[in-house]
């Protein structure tokens, strides 16, 4: 039986791991390759690097981080942040990423996802969607770290991206991100029910029960979290044991 995945996410800026609370108040917490090796040994099911390097000149640093990480970790690695062109994708894959996540570039040029999926395969194209609740049952896609509204309905957008060839959706609730209040389960469930591809729930995890809810109520195939793992609040093993005890199939 396929297992639910627990995915720690490392926000990387200028080659260093940071983690934001609502994308401000960044705190420095280490070397990404070292962190990755720790998560690998701890039994993480996948790893995710989100590159939040702002300056264009320093963007290539992430390629070195990916390359050194891929030397040491024999588990799936997704890299996102600033992926704009098929050449960006190719360089990340060659450096050792298994999947790339595309966010703003997909909104700016919806055909980009189709072209990328045809060129590199559906399996390595993750579309990241940052959704924000704009009405009780309506979620809108935002870009630029939640600052820019797009007018796109998040559920319809997810469906369109799946049709374009995305292999997976990384769905972040901008309302919940950094709050510790748990995933937006209504958003998660709406997108999961709308697309045939796996959905990774993200944004808002503050405790282990939130991971359980993301799978059980949200219907997510995988749960992503950053702070609760990164600052030692919980270990990967605790998270997986807690989910297994709640009846979710896990790789222990």
């Amino acid at each position, binding site marked *: *039986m*396929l*297992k639910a995945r627990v995915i720690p996410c490392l926000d990387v800026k200028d080659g260093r791991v940071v983690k934001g609370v609502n994308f401000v108040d960044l705190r420095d917490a280490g070397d990404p390759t070292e962190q990755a090796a720790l998560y690998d040994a701890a039994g993480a099911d996948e790893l995710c690097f989100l590159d939040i390097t702002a300056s264009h000149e320093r963007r290539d640093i992430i390629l070195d981080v990916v390359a050194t990480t*891929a030397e040491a970790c*024999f588990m799936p690695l997704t890299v996102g942040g600033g992926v704009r062109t098929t050449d960006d994708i190719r360089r990340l894959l060659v450096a*050792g990423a298994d999947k790339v996540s595309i966010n703003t570039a997909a909104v700016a040029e919806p055909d980009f996802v189709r072209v990328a999926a045809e060129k590199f*395969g559906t*399996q390595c194209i993750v579309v990241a969607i940052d959704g924000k609740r704009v009405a009780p049952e309506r979620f809108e896609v935002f870009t630029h770290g939640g600052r820019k509204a797009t007018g796109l309905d998040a559920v319809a957008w997810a469906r369109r991206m799946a049709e374009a060839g995305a292999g997976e959706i990384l769905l972040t609730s901008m309302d919940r991100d950094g709050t510790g209040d748990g995933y937006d389960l209504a958003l998660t469930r709406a997108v999961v029910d709308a697309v045939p*591809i796996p959905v990774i729930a993200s944004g808002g995890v503050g405790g282990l029960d939130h991971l359980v809810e993301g799978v059980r109520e949200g219907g997510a195939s995988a749960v992503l979290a950053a702070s609760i793992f990164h600052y030692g609040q919980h270990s990967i093993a605790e998270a997986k044991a807690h989910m297994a005890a709640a009846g979710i199939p896990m790789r222990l």
Partner: protein
Amino acid sequence: MSHTVAVIDYGSGNLRSAAKALKRCADSLHLKTEVRVTAEPDAVAGADAIVLPGVGAFADCRRGLAALDGMEQALSEAVEQRGRPFLGICVGMQLMASRGHEHGLHEGLAWLDGDVVALEPSDPALKVPHMGWNDLVVTDSSHPLLEGIATGDHAYFVHSYRFAPEAADKVLAEVDYGGLIVAAVGRDNLAGTQFHPEKSQATGLRLLGNFLRWRP
């Protein structure tokens, strides 16, 4: 004498992961193995073992392989005539089949009788691609490639198509995803895995180590 493993570079995605994992296995087993990522038919013809990784669509991978002048002939001679150990990974395994049905009907290398068909899990709640960790059901525990790997061990899968063999006797391991599907196949000096051993942590490294020591 050094043992050379050729990892065929035909423009497919994460072949460096496969090469790095093979290198790690060779080092930890203290094998004098040289892992060479190559697009040269001569390097494949002269290799002691051959790995064909693969991500993406069947037809694209088939085209990518065919685009390397002389590669398919070198591969066929090394594998079919000289009996060199061969491992196909994911689409690399699927290419061993007679035919692929992804985006039209395409001929495979025809080393294993059967078709590569769309994954249609019996449970409609199951997502496609089949993505993530799933536990293996070992059906041929005597195969050298699966030494030390048992039913219940987890491997990492990412695929939307599956190999449907004509005969079950070449199946080495299966996996349950809305019904049992092929996880590993083999005959003689040929083997293939639907999962990614290079991404399957200890279980995957074990299989790759077994492959490096395999002398069929």
